[in-house]
């Protein structure tokens, strides 16, 4: 498996090499299941939702269609072979259902399954399926379909490698339940079922391996997909959740340019849009004509950072990496590009996360120290430090790297900047042909979902999902502890250790959290009021992923 991302649209999800985490289908959103009780963010449920943007106030209205502007296009709808970024997950949410769904508090709750239960040592997970659910083609949801899905995921070059450490064997327990055996205890297993690998695809589609004609159990079914232009879905009249969805149909429009998408929303061309442009939030958040849903503070959001290749000269030198880190004035960067919305965040975890430590040891901005480190390291690298910093072709990112480059130059680091196309960008990350790239990833509802990006086990050439190729045994130990331990306290310690190890190793130079948001004009209501089957609140919009099930038109 290789490519960790969409190779598709140019500025489509160009921004910040996004893709990555979500694209592999390994990312999800929210807090760790088992820790939800200790989470400090339980106030989510208590928030009065009536006045919140995206929460409907009146009686639901049936009928009508909406148009949603997405930031990227996808390469297809087959979970085992296509790269689901946030837009891909949004498409998938419309036509498929996942076995579990993330609740508003960040826990994973059964969705297409009625229960997902582990054995005592968390190595065998039994999934019991919801009865009476049918696919768009009329075929029933049963254990055979689910088994076939997981087999197909395992066989795929894309998802197989990611599942390798998770799923070992599986058996059909009954017509409506399957048991999955893991090679080691996987605490976050239910979270995996809420990601790309949790979508259940109809048997007919599995057999045809069609990436263009999705057959799911979802609230909508495909009408038409014209890549790069639109994807249209219509209401599934036999949807298993009675009364849902309200809309007759949804049209998704990939509009890569942030500014174009914002213009489209302003001109009424689209009703809703997904964006990570902080300028849009600044422009519209106080405008009564729009409802702006910010990324929830639940779980891990995507991080914006510079990824360094620890296997090539001179970034293989820790002193150089330290110099680079000390030289970046993150406050200034965020001030320049955050539109007053983004906040500096020098950690894998956001403030409020239980995994966040008071001090993770990440190098502070210190130009003098950076200069000293450069002087110290230079003799080992031919007398001067030369760095090549690149990003994908995106006007905002291009400005960011120019600012970073000028900061590095001030510290005496010769920096050349360049732009690369999305596809080349990802290829180079995977194959290690880069020194420093801007990147954006790590959105997850459980930190274990990010294991594959950081583990030394995936850092080996020629193709490495641990792009920075950082091989730190202490980091691996902490990651393993977090993965296998069911004790919340142990996990907190483990992931705090992960954060500290990253600060020490410096494969990633942190900047800020991604400023995802979902914006709607007032023609759409209730578009962020996703519920679980029992009526309790689900997470809804997070990290650029949207579910249209609860939305209705106002007019």
């Amino acid at each position, binding site marked *: 498996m*290789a*490519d960790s991302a969409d*190779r*598709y*649209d*140019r*500025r*489509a999800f160009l921004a910040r090499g996004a893709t990555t985490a979500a694209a592999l289908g390994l990312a999800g959103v929210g807090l760790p299941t088992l820790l939800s009780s200790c989470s400090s963010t339980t106030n989510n449920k208590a928030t009065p939702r009536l006045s919140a943007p995206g929460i409907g106030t009146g009686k639901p209205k049936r009928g009508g269609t909406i148009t949603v*502007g997405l930031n990227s296009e996808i*390469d*297809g709808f087959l979970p085992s072979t296509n790269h689901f970024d946030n837009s891909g997950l949004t498409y998938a949410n419309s036509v498929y259902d996942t076995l579990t769904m993330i609740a508003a508090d960040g826990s994973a709750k059964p969705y297409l399954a009625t229960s997902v239960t582990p054995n005592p040592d968390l190595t065998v997970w039994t999934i019991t399926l919801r009865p009476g659910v049918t696919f768009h083609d009329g075929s029933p949801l049963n254990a055979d379909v689910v088994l076939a899905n997981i087999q197909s995921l395992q066989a795929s*070059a894309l998802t197989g490698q990611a599942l390798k450490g998770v799923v070992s064997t599986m058996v059909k327990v009954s017509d409506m339940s399957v048991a999955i055996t893991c090679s080691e205890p996987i605490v976050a297993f239910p979270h995996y079922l809420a990601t790309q690998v949790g979508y259940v695809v109809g048997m007919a589609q599995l057999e045809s391996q069609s*990436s*263009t004609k999705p057959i799911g159990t979802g609230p909508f079914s495909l009408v038409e997909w*014209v*890549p*790069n*232009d*639109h994807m249209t879905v219509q209401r599934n009249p036999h949807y298993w959740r009675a009364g849902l969805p309200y809309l007759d149909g949804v049209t998704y*429009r990939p*509009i*890569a*340019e942030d500014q*174009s*998408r914002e*213009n*489209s929303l*302003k*001109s*009424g*061309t*689209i009703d809703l849009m997904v964006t990570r442009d902080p300028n849009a939030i600044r422009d519209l958040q106080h405008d009564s004509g729009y409802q702006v849903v910010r990324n929830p503070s639940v779980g891990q959001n995507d991080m914006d950072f510079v990824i360094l290749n620890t296997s090539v000269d001179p970034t293989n030198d820790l002193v150089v990496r330290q110099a680079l880190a000390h030289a970046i004035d993150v406050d200034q960067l965020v001030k320049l590009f955050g539109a007053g919305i983004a906040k500096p965040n020098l950690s894998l975890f956001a403030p409020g996360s239980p995994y966040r430590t008071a001090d993770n040891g990440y190098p502070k901005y210190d130009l003098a120290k950076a200069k000293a480190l450069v002087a110290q390291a230079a003799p080992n690298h031919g007398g001067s430090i030369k760095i090549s910093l690149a990003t994908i*072709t995106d006007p905002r990112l291009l400005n960011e790297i120019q600012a970073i480059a000028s900061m590095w130059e001030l510290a005496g680091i010769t920096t050349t900047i360049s732009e690369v*196309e*999305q*596809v*080349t960008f*990802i*290829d180079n990350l*995977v*194959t290690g042909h880069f020194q420093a790239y801007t990147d954006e990833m790590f959105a997850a509802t459980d930190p274990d979902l990010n294991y594959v990006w950081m583990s030394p086990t995936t850092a080996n050439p020629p*193709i490495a999902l641990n792009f920075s190729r950082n091989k730190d045994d202490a980091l691996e130990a902490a990651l393993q502890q977090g993965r296998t331990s069911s004790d919340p306290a142990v996990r907190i310690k483990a992931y705090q250790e992960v954060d500290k190890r990253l600060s020490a190793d410096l494969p990633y130079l942190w900047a800020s959290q991604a400023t995802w948001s979902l914006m709607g004009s007032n023609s759409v209501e209730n578009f962020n009021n996703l519920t679980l089957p029992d009526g309790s609140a689900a997470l809804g919009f997070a990290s650029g992923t949207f579910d249209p099930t609860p939305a209705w038109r106002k007019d």
Partner: protein
Amino acid sequence: MLRFIATRLVQLVVICFLISVFAFLLVHLLPGDPTLAILGPNDTPAARAVLLHQLGLNKGLLSQYGTWIINILHGNLGASFLTKQTVSNALGVAVPIDLELVIVSQVLALLVAIPMALVAALRPNRIFDRVATTSTFAMLSLPTFVAGPLLVLVFAVTLKWVPATGFNRLSQGFGPNLKSVILPSVALAIGSITVYYRLLRADLIATLQEDFVTMARSKGLSTRYILMRHVMRPSSFSLLAGAGISIGTLFTGAFVVEVLFQLPGIGFQLVNAIYGRDYLVVQGMALVAAVAFVVVNFGVDFLLTVLDPRVRRA
């Protein structure tokens, strides 16, 4: 006449052949192993086998070209390695958009340029002529990538008259369809107006001085009749030739406009394919675009021959 057309047809075929060779070689000119370049890290044995088959890379260059061109003549232009969508399907989406863009923009340009040129030519060097000629100079100096964003800002974002992005097909209703193409068409028409206006004005002024116009006046025919029946046609040849020329500008403009307005025409899809390193799509789209360019130019030439009885002699 027949000989003339035959000669031009032979030229057309030769040029199309050369274009196809160029497009064919495109993939083969990729440095190193083209399959690697195309597949990138997606390089699994299965994908490679499919691609090898699709490109016919395991055979000699000549027979590869033969297979490739025969496939193309059968309408099989290959498929995207990303979306699995066939290039023919993508073209099915793109071509109607491009056609509509071209037609609407050119009709708009003519609707503006012809009356302007008529009024200016009837009273050359008077106020209207000076204003019109100056403003077309300004338009000539307004590239699409400058005019386009301005138009969006004013008419889509501020006035909300038309959508800022996207294309509504004719099947979604005439109104929505027209609304979605009008702004991009205006952006495209700006350049064409200038070309048409200037060619037509110069020609009209020359034609209006012809004896046959005085002759028509001496018959007591009305000015309008004379303009329509005696002046427009002989003056329209360089206009038509200008339309042929304008296709080149349209190409440049259309690419920018399609990206700006997110219209999945050939330009937009081509730019996306280039960014996605989707070489087969680049190859197919470029082939079709270049052939279309040549064929349209041929069509213009042909039309000129039909319209101007004097050329037919030659």
